[in-house]
């Protein structure tokens, strides 16, 4: 019996971060559920032990079921008949296994049938699922929609829908339309209220909807006639049991082929409003997107990890010129860098997940009672950090997943180009991660204000102030040099107060900040566990060269240069 959770000790390392104590104690409201539910933890140690035991189940399912099913699922894909989607056989099997293991609704409160897990262990499960099959991670990750229902739905809606998700019904978030992709303000799907029937009816078309034939849909639609912008949009719940939505086509995609991406036609589909009118996009979808982005980060990290394993296994076995190819500097450098990027990505993923956890859990508590002043402070701090780290993390981890998948094929040589090896699937699957839930370019748009307002710099300073083992002093020196360079390019770019010039260099600045942050996170990992030392050494060297390049590019650039790049 193979087991991802047990065969890769880094998961446990990230699970046992010191901040978990605070997260779990707030999440469990001082363990009040222990007298109500027979599966609730008694204390902190008990909760951590439960997370480990449940993640062990996930690790086993990933290695024994989901990963072995992946090649067949990739080949077969879902099919469409009479407006309904059937998953590939392997996907059906995976869903059944996950349901029987009681893993759906992992992060939902126990009173709705969930496991009440914090974000960190939930995201860790997603990380492993994606390593087994990134396409299946989409179906797994759509559990997130239940969180939106929990946060913004009425108590009646929570009680009617969340237990269904916890018992294994699937969800989808229906946002994109043919003319509303990155720009969701132009969503046209019409929602009309019928006083007679006391409900809303949806009419129109949605496109690129992941798991579009789900049991329960969250739908962004225009409820305010004659409006054109985001303030005319509301969020609706559509229950498949009511009928009215058909799947017109399943897209034929490059990757994540097991996950059905659908075009949906709404014909008088009965729906109910979720939350308040007009807040659909500006409040609810923004929240939904943030947790979805964290899910995509987990998907990217899982793919990066899988790419490392595939490349390493091949490089160790494959012999050329009388020795295993991993013995050649050109190959072992690639392997080391892949490992460093995967470890750095994972460090970023869990740091972000912890910020999201603390922020969300305190916000949830604030609905039950007034927060103490220091708790309010805490919530504000972590809310801001979650807001800053989510787009940066999504941008970096998904780009690294693509780079790792690319290098995995490179290490396989000609064989990697053939369908016989897993690396080609990873390459195809990784390609969407830096596109959906906001392209890397859009993550930069979200992240750049934290460059200009100094959120990243102050967090880097906090990391700098931590204690590091003396043998890592030289790495810390490098990171301090990188930080100095980051500071000066921010000054150079922001000084002219030219927004186009800022946009032009935005990605470079976000990346420079990210290199410092990822470097410090790996240093902290190496502090706690010597396993990470190599990745820290490799990553910081790589990152410093990158920051030097960015510094060189920006210090030599001029606002006039933009003209050479502009396309008329």
């Amino acid at each position: 019996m193979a087991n991802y959770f047990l065969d890769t000790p880094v998961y446990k390392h990230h699970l046992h971060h010191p901040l978990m104590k605070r997260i779990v104690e707030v999440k469990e409201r001082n363990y009040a559920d222990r007298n109500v539910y027979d599966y609730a933890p008694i204390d902190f140690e008990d909760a951590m032990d439960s997370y480990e035991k449940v993640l062990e189940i996930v690790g086993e399912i990933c290695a024994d079921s989901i990963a072995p099913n992946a090649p067949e699922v990739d080949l077969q894909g879902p099919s469409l008949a009479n407006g309904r989607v059937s998953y590939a056989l392997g996907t059906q099997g995976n869903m059944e296994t996950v349901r029987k293991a009681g893993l759906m609704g992992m992060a939902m409160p126990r009173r709705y049938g969930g496991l009440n897990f914090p974000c960190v262990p939930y995201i860790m499960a997603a990380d492993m699922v994606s390593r087994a099959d990134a396409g299946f991670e989409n179906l797994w990750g759509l559990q997130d929609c239940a969180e939106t229902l929990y946060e913004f739905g009425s108590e009646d809606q929570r009680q009617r829908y969340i237990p269904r998700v916890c018992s294994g019904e699937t969800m989808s978030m229906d946002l994109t339309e043919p003319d509303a992709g990155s720009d969701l303000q132009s969503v046209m799907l019409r929602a009309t209220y019928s006083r007679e029937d006391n409900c809303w009816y949806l009419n129109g078309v949605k496109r690129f909807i992941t798991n579009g034939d789900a049991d329960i849909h969250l739908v962004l639609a225009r409820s305010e006639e004659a409006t054109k912008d985001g303030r005319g949009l509301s969020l609706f719940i559509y229950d498949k049991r009511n009928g009215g939505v058909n799947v017109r086509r399943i897209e034929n995609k490059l990757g994540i082929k097991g996950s059905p991406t659908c075009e949906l036609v709404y014909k008088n589909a009965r729906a109910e409003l979720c939350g308040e009118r007009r807040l659909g996009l500006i409040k609810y979808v923004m929240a939904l997107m943030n947790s979805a982005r964290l899910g995509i980060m987990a998907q990217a990290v899982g793919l990066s990890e899988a790419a490392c394993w595939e490349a390493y296994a091949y490089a160790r076995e494959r012999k050329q010129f009388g020795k295993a190819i991993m013995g050649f500097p050109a190959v072992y450098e690639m392997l080391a860098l892949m490992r460093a990027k995967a470890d750095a990505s994972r460090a970023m993923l869990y740091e972000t997940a912890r910020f999201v956890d603390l922020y969300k859990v305190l916000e949830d508590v604030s609905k039950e009672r007034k927060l103490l002043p220091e708790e309010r402070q805490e919530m504000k701090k972590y809310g801001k950090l979650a807001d800053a780290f989510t787009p940066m993390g999504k941008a970096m981890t998904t780009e690294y997943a693509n780079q790792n998948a690319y290098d995995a094929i490179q290490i396989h040589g000609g064989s990697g180009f053939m369908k016989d090896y897993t690396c080609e699937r990873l390459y195809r699957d990784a390609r969407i991660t830096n596109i959906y839930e906001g392209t890397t370019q859009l993550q930069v748009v979200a992240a750049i204000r934290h460059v200009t307002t100094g959120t990243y710099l102050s967090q880097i300073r906090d990391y700098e102030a931590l204690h590091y083992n003396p043998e890592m002093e030289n790495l810390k020196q490098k990171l301090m040099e990188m930080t100095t360079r980051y500071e000066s390019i921010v000054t150079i770019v922001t000084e002219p107060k030219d927004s186009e010039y800022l946009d032009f260099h935005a990605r470079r600045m976000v990346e420079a900040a990210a290199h410092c942050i990822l470097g410090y996170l790996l240093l902290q990992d190496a502090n706690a566990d010597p396993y990470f030392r190599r990745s820290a050494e490799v990553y910081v060297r790589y990152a410093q060269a990158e920051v030097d390049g960015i510094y060189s590019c920006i210090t030599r650039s001029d606002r006039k240069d933009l003209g050479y790049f502009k396309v008329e």
Partner: protein
Amino acid sequence: MSLKIIVLAKQVPDTRNVGKDAMKADGTVNRSVLPAIFNPEDLNALEQALRLKDTHPGATVTLLTMGPQRAAEIIREGLYRGADKGYLLTDRAFAGADTLATSYALAMAIRKIKTYDLILCGRQAIDGDTAQVGPQVAEKLGLAQITYAEAIRKVENGKITVVRRLERGIETVEATLPVVVTVNGTAPACRPRNARYVQKYKHAKTIAEQQNAHADYLHLFNARAYLNLEEWSAAEVNADVRLCGLSGSPTKVKKIENVVFQTKESKTMEPTDEHINELMKELITNHTIA
């Protein structure tokens, strides 16, 4: 009437991944280097039981295992997957049992459980490979037995319909309850552990294990009855100790030989049509392929 199912399960050394230290110099199994696992075909049997529980409201699944204290793990593994309770049959008197002594002890424990409609167990255990315990239990209890089961088609009106996997095909048979059914490894694999059950039962311990339990959790054993795993000694199941363990075992291992696999008659062939033709002819002549 709600269905009462007993599943017999054994903890075995994992002989599927045997390394060079698997046997001791004296020829006995070196259990300390082999991980102890749930006998694979007993898991297939458990799955059949759990499927009946899924489809028959009110059905209960009880695990029965014989072994040393650490075999309590088998009961927990069963509870994690959906079994309702379990008994650990443990006593020094049971040590060294062959299949006859084992089936005697199990049959006595089943008599003590008293009410049951169906007894399920794996076809055989991977440590002994005898496939005798299931049939012997049936004999001792005077019950009908269905061996090599691959699927239980239905259970209704006091009758059970079972599909058997045999050497030359499959056979569907019907029997009157109660009955003993031994399940093949070709039956569906067991479901995964369930996240809620794992969290509910992870503190479940036998009295002996409770002595080593963490002080913070001791109060749970009083508060939550289901966390106390029952263990039975030979006396508690009214077993005659002379018929148990080594003294009740007519089978004596006379001698054990280490078999070392090595290539004796290997041939190297070129991947050409000519050589493949020759090989095919040879294989047909010596009846390796028909």
